[in-house]
C-alpha cells in the first residue's frame, strides 16, 4: 500500500480496497413506499463514513441493508466482495463480518454483560468458552466496563450499555462496523464516553459507517460525510467541505438546522 497517511491521528490505512459497494440500491416498504430510490456508496477499507440527513430520509434503512436486516429490491450490494442477495449462506457469512450498534443498544437483558459479549463467538464462531471469555474481558476492559462484567444490562447506565453493545459487536472480530445513531438515545453527559470508544476504534483502522448527528465527531474522525434526503444520496464530501462549504441546497438547509 503506497498511500501516504494524511491524518496523524489514524494509524489505520485508507486503502483502495472497497469493503462496501452499494450500487443504485432501491427499496420499497410494503410494495408501495419507495424508501431508497437508487443509492450508491463505496466505502474503502479503513474508511470512516458518516451518514447524515433529516429523520425519515432512509439512513437506517440504507445501512441496515449492509447486513441484510433489510432486503432491497433493485441494485447491488457487495460486502468485502461477497454479493448480498437472498442467498442465506452469503447472508450468514456477511453477518459474521459486519458488526452493528443500534440506537436502542438492544443488549440482551436476560444475560449478564459478559454473557452478552461471549454469546455470538461461542454459538456462531464456535469458540471455546475460555477463548470467548478471554476475548470478552479484553474488550470490556477496552471499553472501560470490566468491573461491570457480571452485572445485567438493566443495571447499567445508557452510556455503559452502549459501550457494552460495541464490545459485543467487536467480539465477533468484524471487518466492518455499522453504527445507527449510537448516541441519540443517551443523556448528553454520556455521549462523550461512547464517542471516545468510537474514536479509538476508528483510529485502529476499522471500516466504519456511522449514522450520527455529532458534528464534532464527524469533523474529527470521518473521512467522508454523506447526506441523505428522501431516499437519495444528495451530497458526498470531506468533512471540511461538507461543513464549511456545502454544495447542495439540501445540505445547506440541513446544516442550518443542526448547527
Amino acid at each position: 500500500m503506497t498511500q501516504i497517511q494524511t491524518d496523524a491521528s489514524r494509524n489505520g490505512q485508507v486503502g483502495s480496497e472497497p469493503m462496501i459497494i452499494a450500487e443504485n440500491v432501491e427499496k420499497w416498504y410494503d410494495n408501495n413506499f419507495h424508501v431508497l430510490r437508487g443509492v450508491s456508496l463505496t466505502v474503502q477499507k479503513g474508511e470512516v463514513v458518516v451518514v447524515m440527513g433529516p429523520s425519515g430520509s432512509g439512513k437506517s434503512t440504507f445501512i441496515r441493508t449492509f447486513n441484510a436486516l433489510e432486503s432491497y429490491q433493485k441494485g447491488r450490494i457487495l460486502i468485502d466482495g461477497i454479493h448480498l442477495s437472498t442467498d442465506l449462506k452469503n447472508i450468514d457469512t456477511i453477518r459474521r463480518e459486519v458488526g452493528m450498534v443500534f440506537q436502542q443498544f438492544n443488549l440482551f437483558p436476560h444475560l449478564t454483560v459478559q454473557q452478552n459479549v461471549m454469546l455470538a463467538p461461542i454459538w456462531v464462531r464456535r469458540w471455546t468458552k475460555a477463548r470467548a471469555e478471554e476475548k470478552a474481558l479484553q474488550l470490556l476492559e477496552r471499553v472501560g466496563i470490566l468491573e461491570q462484567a457480571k452485572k445485567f444490562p438493566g443495571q447499567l447506565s445508557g452510556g455503559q450499555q452502549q459501550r457494552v453493545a460495541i464490545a459485543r459487536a467487536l467480539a465477533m472480530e468484524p471487518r466492518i462496523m455499522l453504527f445507527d445513531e449510537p448516541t441519540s438515545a443517551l443523556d448528553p453527559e454520556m455521549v462523550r464516553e461512547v464517542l471516545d470508544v468510537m474514536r479509538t476504534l476508528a483510529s485502529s483502522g476499522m471500516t466504519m459507517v456511522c449514522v450520527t448527528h455529532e458534528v464534532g465527531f464527524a469533523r474529527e474522525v470521518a473521512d467522508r460525510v454523506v447526506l441523505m434526503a428522501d431516499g437519495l444520496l444528495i451530497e458526498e464530501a470531506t468533512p471540511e467541505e461538507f461543513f464549511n462549504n456545502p454544495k447542495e441546497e439540501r445540505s445547506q438547509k440541513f446544516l442550518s438546522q443542526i448547527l
Partner: protein
Amino acid sequence: MTTTSPPSFSTRPDVAQIGAIAWVRKHLFSGWFNSLVTVVLGSLLIRSIVGFIGWATTTAQWKVIPENLPLYFVGQFPPDQYWRIWALLWMISALSGLTWGNLSQNVPHLFSRTVLIWVGILAVIFVLAPTPLPYRLLLLATLGLVLGGAWAGRYLSQSLPSFGLGLAIAWGLSFFIMLWLMAGGFGLKPVSTTAWGGLLLTLFMSVVSIVLCFPLGVALALGRQSTLPVVRLLSTVYIEVVRGVPLIALLFIGAVMLPFFLPGNVRLDLVLRAIFGLTLFSAAYLAENVRGGLQSIPRGQAEASSALGLNTPLTLGLIVLPQALKVAIPSIVGQFISLVQDTTLVSIIGLSDLMRISRAVLANPLYIGRYAEVYLFIGVIFWVLCYAMSWGSRQLEARLKTTN
C-alpha cells in the same frame, strides 16, 4: 409567651396519625360511606367465622377424613406397595429442594423469614396429623429432605458449574422413575392404572399434562407467528378450535372417540386418554399465553441477534424464547393452576381422582351426609396445591429478575 407556634413546628405527630388506630381510620373509616361498608361487611365476616367455627367444633364429624386418608391420597394403590409412593415423594422432594437451592444461589438468605414461618406451620401440621406415628415421621422426613436439598443445591451450584445441567437431566430421568414406581414392572409388582386414584392420580395427570402441554403450547405459539402460511394457518385453526370447545367435550372425545380412530388392536389406557385430552386442551391456552410473551419482546432483540450472525433457531432459543417465557410466567402458571383444577373433570369419564374418591366415600352408609367435611377437605388440598404453584411462580420471577 402567649403566641402559639405554627402547627408545622410541632415535633410530635398527633397520636391519631400513627399506629394501628391511624391505619384503621384512614383505610376503614374515612367518610360515612366507607364506615358503613366496613361495619356491614365486617359484621358479616365475623358472623360467618363464628358460625364456621361453631359448626366445625360441634356439628361436623371429622372422622370421615382420617378414616379414609389412604383413599384420598392414593386411591386403591395396594397398601403393601405404599413404600413406592413414599420413594416417589422423596425423589420429588429432594429434586425440588435441590432446584430451589440452585435458583437461590445468588440470594442472600436461602430461608427467608416467610419461608421459615411456612416450614414451621407445615411441621406442626405434620406432627399433629391424624395418622399413625410412622407416617408423621415420614412426612417430617420429607420436609427435611426439601430443606436439606435446598441447602445442598445452593452449595453444589456454587461449587459445580454444571450442576444446573445435571439437575435438568435428573428431572428428566425422574419422570421415568416415577412411571416405574407407579406402574411397576422391571422387578416391581405391577400396579394397574385402575388402582391409581385420589391425590396421586390428580397429581400424576397434572404433572404429565403440564410436561407435555408446555412444548406443544410453545410450538403452537411459534407456529402462529411463523412466516410460513400453512404452519400459521394450522396453528391458528388448532388454537381457535380447541379454545372454542369445552374441556369436558375433549375428554369425552379422548375417552370415547379416540379408540375409533386407532387400529382395533390398540387399547389406550383410560388415564392416558384423559391426559391426552387435558394436554391438547391446555396447550391451546398455553400457546396464547406464550404468544403474549413473544409479542412483548421488542423487535430489536431479534435484530441484534441476527446482526451478530445467530440464525433463526438460535435467535429463538437463546434470545427471544427465554425472555418471552419469563414475561409469561404468571400467565403460564395461571394456566397450569387451571389445569390442576380441571383434572377434577376426569371423574366424569370414570377415573378415581380426588373428586370421585370423595363421592365414593360419601356413598358409604357410614358417612351419609358428610358432604361439607369431605368437600372442605379436598378443597383445602386443591387450595394448597394451587397456592403453592402461584407462590413458586412468584419466587421464580423474583429469582429471574435482572433489573434493579
